[in-house]
Every structure is written in C-alpha cells, then in structure tokens.
C-alpha cells in the first residue's frame, strides 16, 4: 500500500547537484533524477530491456523497428499522469528530444539522440523516431536513466540557452516516477514524497524519502552497515576487508553486481618525453621508444597477478579480466590467458626483445634504461595497484616512477594541463571506463586512428593510447553497418582481442562491479549496473 | 643592636611596622644574591622615616618586601620578620601572611609609590581607570564617586586639568605627571603606612614642595606613617623625623634627622653628606666647576669656562601633540608642549632647562634630536640644519648628539644585556671595534660606577639608579658633541650623583662637550650650568647666564621657583605657609588656537625675560 512504510533514507556520498540528466551527466544526478522522471524503457539487472512508460519495447519482430533500421515507433502506456495530474502525451516525448537536441542547450545526453532526423507524433500515445542512417542500436533515446521524459509544459520556456535559468524545473522536475521532490538542496539533500499520481496505486511503499549527499564512501558505509542511520548507501568503493569489517556491524548487507566497467592500463604508443617540443610530445610523430615493442607490452602484462589485484582492491566487487568488453555475455571474448601471472615468461620476453639486466637490476638496451612513468588518478585502491604493479615490474627489471593526479585534473579535459589522461604525458596510465547500455559499438570505435588526442584537436579524443591500425578502423566501420546480433558480437570480440591480447596496448586488469549496501530492514533492492541503481525504488519496502 | 636605642619621636606608641633582620635573596644564574642582607628598623604612626643610601643598597627591595611584592619580581624573603600593626590592633607578620590577606592590606592600609613611573602605569588604561580602581575596591565607591575622588586626588598632586587627564593614557603625560599619578594612586585610600620610593625624583621643586607638603599634611592629619626613600638630602632634611642609612644591603646607621645631619657616625653617611650639592655654593662664580669630593679635597678644581663658539642654535621651536578623543580616537585638541622656543648652546658649555613638570622640557630636548617631529622651527647643530636632514643624514647627525632619557627603565631594551646596550652606539657607527671597544665599555662602566659584573645583567635586575647609570654610559659611548641629559642624575644617590656630575664636567673640560641639562634640582643646576633657561608652559620665560638667573631672577615664575628650593638642613625647614603657587594653566588648546609669538626683554648682558603673557 502506498506510503505505508513511512520514510526511507538514502545516502550518496557524492551529492546530487541537479535533477535532470540533460544538464549533468554525473551518475549521482542521473540516479537521483531516476526517482522522479522515467524513460520509456529501462535495462534490468541483467541488461534486458523492460518497458516503463512504453507499452512494450519495439523490435523488428514486433514491428516497432523497421527493417532498414531507420525508424522506431514507441507506444505510451495509456492513462499515464504527470505528478501534477496532467496526462502524459507523445508531445512530451517529442519535446524531450527537442529539448536535448537544441543546439545551444549543451545537453549532456546529446549522444543519445545522435542520428535522429525527425520525430513524429501521429497521436497522443505514439512516437515515431526517424534516423538519417540505419541505426543498428536504436534504443538510446528515451531508454535508461540518462534519457528520461520531461514534461513539455514545465520546460517549454527552458529551451536552449535558457535551460540553466529554469532552476525550479531543474531542481524539481514534474515526473512520472514514484516520488516527487519537495525540497531540493543542491549538493546536499533532496527531500521527496510519494507521487500521488504514480501509475501503480500500491507503490511506492514509502511515503517520504531523503536522499542525502556528501562525505565519503566509508562514512556512507558506516551509516548503513554500522549505525543503521541510513537505509541505502550507494557505491561503496572501499577495500574489501574494510567493507567486511563494517558488515560485521550487522545493521545492513553489502550487495554487488557487475557491469562493463574495466580498470585497465593503457600503454602510450607515442613518446611523452619532456625533451620533445610542445606540439610533438606524445603525438604520433614520435613512437614510444620502449613501448612500441609489443614484447615489452606483453611482458608488462604478464608480470601482473590480476586475481591478487582483485582480492586486494575489490573483493566480491571485482573479477580479473583480460577483456576490454567483459559483458554482456555475447560480446565477451573468452580470453583468459592473462589471468595467471608469469614472471619468468615476462623476463624471457624482455630478454628476447634485447633488454638486458643492468648493474642496478634495471634492464637496459642501447644505453637506455627500462624506466616507465606510471600515472593514475588519486584513489586509494589505484595507489595500491600502482604499488603492487611497480613491485612486479621491478621483479622483471623494469623501474617504475609513480604519479597520482587529482581526479578533477586527470579526467578534466583542460588542454593547458600536462596532467590530463588524454594528454598522456606518461608511459603508462591506469583508469577505468565502460559503455552505456549493452552495446559496445561506440566504445570500441573509440580506438580508431582519427580519435587519437592531438594538439590540433585540443587534445580531445578517446583513443588514449594512440593505437592506430587500419584493419581495426575497417572492422569498426563494418560493425556500424551490421544489424544482426551474432555477427555484431563476433566483430566486437575481434576488435576487443585486437586491442588486448593481440597488441597489448590496452591491458585490462579488473572487471569492476558495483558494491552498494542496504539496511537489513529495507527490502526489494535489486542492484542494477545497466541503469540507475534506484531503477526499482518503487518496489522498495520495509521488512522486519 | 642599634634599633630601640633611638626612642620613637611620636611618643611611646607601638610601631606600625617593625622590620627585623630582613633578608631578601634573588635567584640568579650566579647563585643567590642578596638584595637586602640584614636590615631592621621600625616606623611609628605619624612619623616619617627617610631611608637613604647608595643606589642599589636595597631600599626598593626592602619596601617591596613590606608589600610582599618581591616574590612577583623573582625575589624571596629569606629571613626576618616584618611585623605590621593592623588597623584592628592585631599585629601581623607580613613575611608569613598569605597573599589573599595581603590584598586587603595593599593599597588600603599600605600605599606604595613606585620608583619608575612610566613602567609602573599600565599603558593601555586611562589614568582615570587606574586611579579609581583602588578606590572602588577598598572604599566601595561607585563610579561617579570614585571619579570625583580621583579628580580631587589629581588636583591635590597638582596635575593641571585633572578632568582631561582622567581620559589620557600614561604615554601622553610628562614624566613628572606620571609620577604624580602614581603618588595619587598610593594616596587614594589614605593608607596608614605610605611607602614612597623616590616619589619626587622626577618633579620640579615647586611641585615637589607641594607633594611634600601634602604628605606632611596627611601625616599630621591622619597619623599616617611615611617610609620615604630618597637620595635627595634636601628632601630628607625637609621631611624626615628619623633617618635610616643603608649601604650594600645593610643598615649602617639610624637616628633622628638632626643627629644624622650634624653628627654622622658611619663613614658612608659622612661621604654621603659631603657629596650633597648646596644651593648658593656657586654664588659669585661665573663658570661651573667640579665638586670637591670627600677624599679628594686636595685635588685642584678648575672652573670650566667653555668657548663662545655656538654649537646648537634653536629658533622658534614648536612641538605639539594631538589629543585624541571619541571612539575613533580622532584628534580633538592639541597639547602645546613646546611653544616658540629659541636658545643657543656654546661649544663646551651647559645650558640647563628648568621648569615645572610638564612644561615641555623633555619635549624640547626630544625635538632637538628630532625624536619627536617638531611642528616648526629651526635647529642647527654646528652648521648642519637638523630640521632639513633626511633620515639617513639624521642618523649620522646623531653621532654628534645623544640623549639620556628621563625614564631609564623604559629606555632600556629588556631583552638586551647591559654591556650590549652600552656597546650598541659603537656598533652602530663602527667607531670602535674588538678590544678597543671592550676597553671602552669597561671604562664607561667604571666611570659611572657600575661594577663590571653588571655587564651581563639585564635591566630588570638593577636598581633605579643603576639603570640610570647605564643610560649615561650609553650616551657617553660615542663621545658626542652634545648630550641632552633629561633628568640624567635625578635617580642617583648623591654620592654617585656627585661623581657622575664631576665626570660630565670633566669630559666637558677635556673634550669640549656641550650639554642641554634638564633637571629640577636647582642645586645641581647651579653647579653645572653656564646658562640657564626657565620654562613655563612650553615657553622659555627667562634665559641667561647662570649667574644672572640665579642671582638676579626677574620673571615672577623664576622667583617662585627659587624660593621653593629645599635646603639640605633640617634646621631650615620650609613651612607650608611659605608656599603659595598659582594653579597651572592648561597647555591643551583647541585645534584652531593660535598662540602669540615669544618676545623678550633684554635685562642684562646675557639675560632675557619673556614679555609675552606666559600664563603665569
């Protein structure tokens, strides 16, 4: 029964700053918004699509998607109401697309709407989306937490450059989700209450909810697992033994699930030496003097004991992996060779490559030392990984200098900073990346030659390691044209292998899952890494 | 023992204090030193006991012990008893009393006047606040009553414009005024015993006479016992019923005042009396001459004529200080401290400035060195225009002119060893180095009669007179051409004073030093000066050769001044009736006040008298 279970307390150690995913793509904001505004369909915990506002997920089979992959037709459920009581119509959906695709809006989810040429609304419930090119994966717009439907009436005045000025709408959007915002304090706390017009009269079970932000993961974990002040804590990035210890508090349970996030080491294929003039440093003009040799890259990978890394850094929230695309099942390559550490093999390989052990135990070749600068962002687990990997590499005669950089600089794209991950003024770097939804196409397309960051493109670009292989580019193009799922999976696996076990430019380490925690009195939690963690908050309830 | 043999003068009453075998030690790095070794004496109600003695002989320490304040200064009463007869009739051994009991006695039953007036006052509180504090505590007065009483007290100690002074801060007062504030503070609650540690040292004779009269009156009217520490034998003669002579931590002699003066027993007492300068000794002589000291009578004393070459020329010097008021402390009026003053000093000669406290003597002296910036006027020192110098040249010029400050403690850096303080001028100008400098420092210490072991001491470890001597040594270090000596010898006991004066005169004879000698001790002034200027309310009212001014005073103020000089002879005490002074007008004027220029009448060869209205 709606509202019977009183109040639920949720803690996000990163505080939400806005309630629409269109103006911020931060996970915290998207997930907070998902309690209020909903898409036409979501991904469930296994990555399957489930309809939300739509009657069903359109497919070629049910005729929702045309054979030429250039059109998709959505049908809204009947009788849907906004939380203010007005009906939800196809115009709202079309408006949502218009809102995000406005050229001056700076919409954070623009990529979701890429390729849309026009949207038609033949009736109040039907939305027809037309694509300029065939779209093998048409489930981007209006699908998942990143692309929920907003109310046309509320945002009508907020198009384009005016978007940021609609503070009230941005903070308290009118939605169809189980809750409505009663008080939004940016970067602090959101107070919500049950949506009186929610489509399921029995839900949500909670009358009110608080989503508190701030602090750090440890504090959030403590509040749920040890003191029981909160019911749900998001993303507990903590060492496994710390979580285990907290769980002894007995007030709550950690839960985990896996998605596509892979912690990896990228090998710089270009020379980052500071002696090179600015503009040529770390560009394809100068290949890396050491890492250009695949034997070295492979040896570095072989020296790493991935299961141990998992044990130390992630525990139940991680799995060792050799793949860039670890999931979904059909896209994951069966590559497991790298999972066993092979120090001796690595040594032999380096030997073979002409790197011989010098006086101080560091290998040399032609007077050059095998010395690498290894950078990553600041994060306790990453620093532990750095230390461990440094030790393993030193065992095979590689000297490593470590550097850690504040995340806001490392991941910020400031072309003026030498420390961004795109500039890659280091020999190897470590970070994690994933892809949205279940389709890896655009993710794999990031490694084409022209996507390498370079001075001319203000160092923007996703091909961080500057890998460049025409064969790879051709395969990517082919993937873009292929609609058949099995075929797509086959190409994707091939691409994955080209980057990993064939060339070792990307050295995957850990498939990182998500650990969150809920109190023992909170029922209905199903952790979902394919969509918002709060995707089924309507089903949450109190248990005794 | 000596005590008890002299019968108390004021009848057979019990003494109010009985000090028995007092011994006070200080813990220093050389081990324990004793500021007072063995002292016993008594003070009876209604009696004035003067304690005289060499500087550093333990006078201040004894009196501080009586207040049980030595402990706070690092001392320890190592032995003896201090019996105090309380108002309720019971007798208390102060040496063993606890501090909370002492608090009800201090300021209430025993009042104390401290030697160093600048540092004795809290710099951040107004005079009014500091005065009324004790009143409100002991007499339970409310604010208005206390204020009224405080103003009355200020008036009694003859501070001009008491209402205004209540709101001023210590640093805005002249040395003498501060001294009087301290006196007023001690008298506030009409204590039964008043300890006065050199209370009139910084005061000019007229005010000194008034203060002495005030204390005398208090003694007579309320039976207050007075323990009066001084080195001024004239004051002793004027005030004392009995005299205690101290020397190096011991009492060496005690007796009724007449007996001490007429028939001193101890060698030290004899030496002391021999060193007292007497007014009139120089009558008829045109140039000053060194004193004839006991033990050196056969030494020839030569007059010091000086030269006629002008060294310092001061013209129309005017210095004013702002008076601030209100929350934002805006300037609301001005103190006309020095008003249109002109004089010259010849090379090798001494000009003395005398005048009542607060008339602007120190300000004039400081203005000449530009230690305070004068508002207008000219100062020329041997050809250089001091007023026109920039900071660098001014510093250089100070090689030739030095100052001895009125308040020796305040003018010494508490963090520096005495040796370094004396060496500093030589460091500054690099006049001497290494062994030569060491020799000179040692020589200077010897000359001002400080033991060489004091070189390693710090200012707070010295007695008042000893500090003064450090300041003198420092001023002499550079062999300057001109020394502004602001009350340079007033804190010294007469024997040392005589030696220091002789030293100064000798240096003058040998090196042609010139002095601007600021003093209130007319006998000393007569002894040392070639010319004398009399100041009143910022102006020089009379200036001329010493002979002319002393033997033929023209200005009414000068005459009054001369009359007030006490004589070091108990038989010739001045009675209160002989003293009648006009109230002193205020030097504080509104911002738009424009004073008249000074005009002088020439009444003699080198003798000028102010014709402009001086306010007297």
């Amino acid at each position, binding site marked *: 029964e709606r509202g019977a279970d009183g109040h639920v307390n949720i803690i996000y150690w990163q505080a939400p700053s806005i309630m629409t995913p269109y103006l911020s793509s931060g996970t915290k904001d998207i997930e907070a918004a998902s309690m209020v505004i909903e898409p036409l369909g979501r991904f469930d915990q296994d990555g399957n699509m489930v309809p939300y506002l739509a009657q069903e997920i359109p497919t070629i089979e049910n005729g929702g998607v045309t054979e030429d992959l250039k059109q998709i037709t959505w049908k809204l459920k009947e009788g849907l109401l906004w939380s203010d009581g007005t009906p939800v119509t196809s115009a709202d959906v079309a408006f949502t697309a218009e809102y995000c695709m406005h050229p001056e809006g700076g919409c954070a989810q623009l990529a979701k709407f890429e390729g849309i040429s026009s949207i038609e609304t033949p009736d109040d419930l039907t939305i027809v989306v037309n694509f300029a090119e065939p779209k093998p994966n048409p489930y981007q717009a209006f699908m998942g937490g990143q692309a929920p439907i907003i109310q046309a009436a509320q945002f009508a005045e907020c198009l384009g450059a005016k978007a940021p000025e609609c503070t009230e709408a941005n903070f308290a959007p009118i939605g169809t989700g189980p809750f409505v915002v009663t008080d939004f304090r940016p970067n602090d706390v959101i107070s919500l209450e049950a949506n009186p017009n929610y489509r399921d009269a029995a839900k949500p079970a909670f009358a009110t909810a608080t989503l508190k932000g701030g602090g750090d993961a440890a504090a959030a974990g403590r509040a749920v697992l040890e003191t029981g002040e909160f019911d749900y804590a998001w993303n507990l990035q903590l060492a496994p033994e710390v979580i285990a210890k907290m769980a002894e508090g007995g007030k709550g349970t950690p839960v985990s699930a896996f998605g596509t996030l892979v912690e990896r080491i990228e090998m710089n294929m270009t020379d980052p030496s500071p002696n090179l003039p600015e503009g040529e440093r770390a560009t394809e003009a100068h290949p890396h003097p050491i890492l250009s040799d695949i034997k070295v890259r492979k040896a570095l990978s072989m020296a790493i004991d991935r299961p141990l890394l998992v044990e130390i850094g992630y525990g139940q929230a991680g799995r060792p992996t050799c793949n860039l695309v670890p999931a979904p099942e059909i896209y994951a390559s069966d590559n497991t060779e790298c999972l066993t550490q092979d120090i001796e093999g690595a040594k032999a390989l380096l030997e073979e490559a002409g790197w011989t052990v010098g006086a101080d135990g560091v290998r040399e070749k032609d007077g050059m030392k095998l010395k690498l600068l290894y950078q990553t962002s600041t994060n306790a687990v990453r620093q532990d990984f750095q230390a461990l990997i440094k030790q393993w590499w030193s065992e095979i005669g590689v000297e490593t200098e*470590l550097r850690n950089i504040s995340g806001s600089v490392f991941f910020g794209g400031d072309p003026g900073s030498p420390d961004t991950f795109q500039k890659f003024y280091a020999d190897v770097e470590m970070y994690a990346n994933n892809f949205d939804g279940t389709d890896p196409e655009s993710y794999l397309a990031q490694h084409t030659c022209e996507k390498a960051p370079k001075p001319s493109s203000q160092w923007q670009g996703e091909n961080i390691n500057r890998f460049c292989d025409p064969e790879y580019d051709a395969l990517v193009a082919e993937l873009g044209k292929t609609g058949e799922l099995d075929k797509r999976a086959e190409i994707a696996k091939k691409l994955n292998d080209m980057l990993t076990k064939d060339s070792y430019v990307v050295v995957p380490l850990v498939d990182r899952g998500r650990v969150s925690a809920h109190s023992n009195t909170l029922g209905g939690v199903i952790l979902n890494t394919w969509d918002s963690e709060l995707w089924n908050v309507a089903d949450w309830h109190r248990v005794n | 023992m000596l005590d008890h043999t002299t019968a108390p003068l004021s009848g057979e009453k019990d003494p109010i204090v009985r000090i028995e075998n007092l011994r006070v030690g200080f813990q220093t790095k050389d081990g324990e030193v004793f500021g007072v070794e063995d002292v016993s004496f008594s003070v009876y109600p209604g009696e004035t006991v003067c304690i005289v003695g060499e500087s550093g002989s333990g006078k201040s320490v004894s009196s501080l012990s009586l207040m049980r304040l030595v402990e706070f200064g690092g001392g320890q009463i190592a032995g003896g008893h201090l019996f105090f007869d309380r108002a309720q009739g019971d007798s208390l051994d102060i040496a063993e009393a606890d501090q909370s009991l002492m608090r009800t006695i201090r300021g209430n039953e025993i009042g104390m006047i401290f030697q160093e007036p600048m540092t004795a006052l809290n710099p951040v509180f107004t005079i009014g606040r500091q005065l009324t504090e004790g009143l409100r505590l002991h007499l339970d007065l409310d604010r208005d009553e206390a204020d009224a009483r405080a103003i009355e007290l200020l008036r009694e100690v003859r501070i001009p414009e008491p209402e205004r002074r209540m709101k001023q801060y210590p640093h805005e007062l002249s040395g003498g005024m501060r001294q009087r504030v301290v006196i007023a503070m001690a008298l506030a609650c009409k204590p039964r015993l008043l300890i006065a540690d050199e209370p009139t040292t910084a005061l000019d004779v007229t005010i000194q006479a008034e203060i002495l009269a005030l204390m005398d009156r208090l003694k007579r009217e309320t039976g207050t016992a007075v323990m009066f520490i001084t080195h001024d034998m004239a004051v002793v003669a004027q005030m004392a019923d009995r005299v205690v002579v101290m020397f190096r931590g011991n009492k060496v002699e005690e007796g009724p005042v007449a007996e001490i003066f007429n028939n001193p027993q101890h060698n030290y007492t004899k030496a002391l009396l021999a060193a007292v300068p007497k007014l009139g000794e120089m009558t008829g002589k045109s140039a000053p001459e060194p004193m004839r000291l006991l033990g050196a009578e056969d030494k020839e004393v030569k007059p010091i004529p000086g030269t006629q070459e002008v060294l310092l020329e001061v013209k129309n010097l005017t210095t004013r200080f702002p008076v601030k008021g209100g929350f934002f402390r805006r300037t609301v009026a001005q103190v006309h401290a020095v008003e249109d003053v002109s004089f010259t000093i010849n090379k090798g000669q001494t000009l003395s400035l005398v005048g009542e406290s607060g008339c602007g003597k120190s300000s004039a002296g400081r203005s000449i060195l530009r230690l305070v910036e004068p508002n207008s006027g000219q100062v020329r020192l041997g050809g250089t225009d001091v007023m026109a110098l920039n900071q660098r040249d001014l510093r250089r010029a100070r090689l030739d002119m030095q100052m001895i400050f009125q308040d020796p403690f305040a003018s010494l850096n508490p963090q520096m060893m005495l040796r370094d303080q004396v060496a500093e001028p030589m*460091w500054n100008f690099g006049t001497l180095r290494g062994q030569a400098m060491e020799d000179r420092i040692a020589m200077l210490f010897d000359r001002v009669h400080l033991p060489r072991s004091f070189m390693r001491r710090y200012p707070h470890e010295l007695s008042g007179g000893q500090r003064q001597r450090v300041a003198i040594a420092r001023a002499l270090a550079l062999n300057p051409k001109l020394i502004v000596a602001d009350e340079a010898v007033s804190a010294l006991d007469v024997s040392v004073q005589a030696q220091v004066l002789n030293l100064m005169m000798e240096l003058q004879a040998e090196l042609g030093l010139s002095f601007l000698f600021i003093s209130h001790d007319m006998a000393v002034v007569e002894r040392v000066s070639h010319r004398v200027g009399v100041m009143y309310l910022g102006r020089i009212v009379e200036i001329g050769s010493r002979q002319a001014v002393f033997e033929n005073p023209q200005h009414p103020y000068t005459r009054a001044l001369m009359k007030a000089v006490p004589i070091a002879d108990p038989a010739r005490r001045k009675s209160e009736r002989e003293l009648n002074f006009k109230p002193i007008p205020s030097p504080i004027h509104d911002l738009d006040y424009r004073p008249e220029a000074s005009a002088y009448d020439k009444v003699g060869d080198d003798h000028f008298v102010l014709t402009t209205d001086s306010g007297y």
Partner: protein
Amino acid sequence: MTDDKTPQSQTGPDHMPGPMPGPGEAGAADILAAPLPSAPPRSQWAEVWSQFRHHKGAMAGGFVFLLILALVFLAPLAWSIDATFIDIRARNQGPSLAHPFGTDQLGRDMLARLMAGGQVSLSVGITAMLLALFLGSLVGVLAGYFKAFDNLLMRSTDLFLALPLLPLLLVMVLLFREPLNAAFGPETGIFILIVVAIGVTSWMPTARIVRGDVLALKEREFVLAARSIGTTNAKMITRHILPNVISPIVVSATLGIANAIITESALSFLGLGFPPDFPTWGRLLFDGVDYMQQNPERVVLPGLAISLTVLSVNYLGDGLRDALDPRLRGR
C-alpha cells in the same frame, strides 16, 4: 682593602675623577670605592644555553625530538626492510617479531614506513615551517615597522589569505613541477615544490600577529632611545624588535610544524605531493583511517608520531622562549 684592584685602576691614563683613596684618608671616601663582587663575563649564548638546560620541559622535548630524529634518520640503517617492499602474504598483520608495528594492506612493513615517512614529514615540516616563519616574520616586521610598507604588505597578506589554496597549489604544480624536476631531479624537485607551496600558503597569520606586536612595540621608549643612538632600521629590527616578538613567533613555529605535516598529507592525497608510494606520516594516517577499526595501530602510530613531534617542538619552543627572556631566566 685592596685598593690596587679597584676597577678604576685598570682604565689607565683616562683617569677617574672619583674618589681615589688618599694616604691616611681611608674611611669615608674609601667605603665608596670598595669593589663590588664581580664574576667573569660569560657570553649571552652560554647563558641562554645554561638556562635552557635547566628547563625540564625543554630538555624532555629536546630529548624526544632528538630521539625521533634518530629513529627516523638513523634507525633505518639497522632496520633493513624497504618501506616500499610488498609482502603480499603478510598483509594487514598486527605487531609481530618480523613486523613490530604490523603491516599495511599490501603487506608493507609499518615500522619501515613510519621511519621513511618520518624522514619526509620531518624534513618537509621543519623546512616549510621555517620558510613560513621566515616569510611571516619578515612581512610582519616590515609592515609593522615601516609605515610605508604597511599597506602594501598587509594587502598582500589579505590577498594570500583570500586565495583558494587548492587552485593555487594546482597552478604551482602546473607551472613549476617540470622545471624543478628538470633542475633538481624528481625527488628534490617535488620536495622544493611542496615546501614552497606550504610555506607560501601559511605565513600569513604569523605575519599579522607579528605585525600587531611590532606596532605596539614600536611605540616603546627603548625603541626611541635606540633611535637616538643612531641604530639603523635594520639593526633596530634585529636587536630590538625581533627579540621582543619572539614568543608569538615561537608559538607560530610549533603550530606551523603540525600544520606543515598535515598539509603535506593533504597535498599527497590530492595527488600534488610526493609519488604515491612515498610514505609520509600524514599519508599513513590518512590511509589508516579506513582501517581504524580492524588495525587501530595503523592510525595510532602515525598519529602518535605527529603528535609527539609537535609536542616536543612545542616544549622546545617554550624552553627557548623562556631562555631567551631575561626576565624569566634564573628562575
């Protein structure tokens, strides 16, 4: 009486006008000339030292501080485990014979890490504190003493106080890391950078406090007296002003060292400090906080090390201050 040893007799020809004991005239005049007992002069520093030695707190503080220094800089010679050596099987262990202070989450020896961390923290803490103290006292004294500088210097103090620390540090790292690395090598380069960064961002309170005291001190009469004997401004500051503002400076020093050690750790977990495998006390403490419940020694030890250092420096400072204050000396 031994008249030939009176002080006057040593002054040679520049003879004394005072009483010279004439033949047969012993007595009254003599008594004044009697020599006062004197002790051989000692240097001021010897004295400060002797006072310092008698200061119980200072001696204890000094002892502890030296002990810490010895443990940190000398003991690694005896304790040969490398602070960065990972023994993964031995992780999160409590104290044992092999690892007296236990191990961290990667099995690195905590004792070795504490010692290595101490080297960094102490060097950074002390140098940065000295730098901040120097800057602060300099600015404070100049501003308080020279009216002409006051406004300019105090407004720059305002400016520095107002600058947001983090972006400032980021900019410093951006501008200077590479040149310093090139000039001094990575470790010295980053050391200089950190010390300067901390020093440059923490001198302001000292400056303001010192300035306030100097303003008050400047009006004291002994400063006027010193000016009258021709003391130059520079000497005035070193001889008369500085010794009299020593106590706020000493307090700033104690607080500064704690501040520097902690700021250093803040820098390193922002990724602005030493390389991540470089242990420092602040960082060990920070890393240990998450393990507070299972391995309390991981926070207690670095915390204790920092506190002990700060305490010992505090007592050292107290002793120094007392020893330098002649009024307190000899008590």
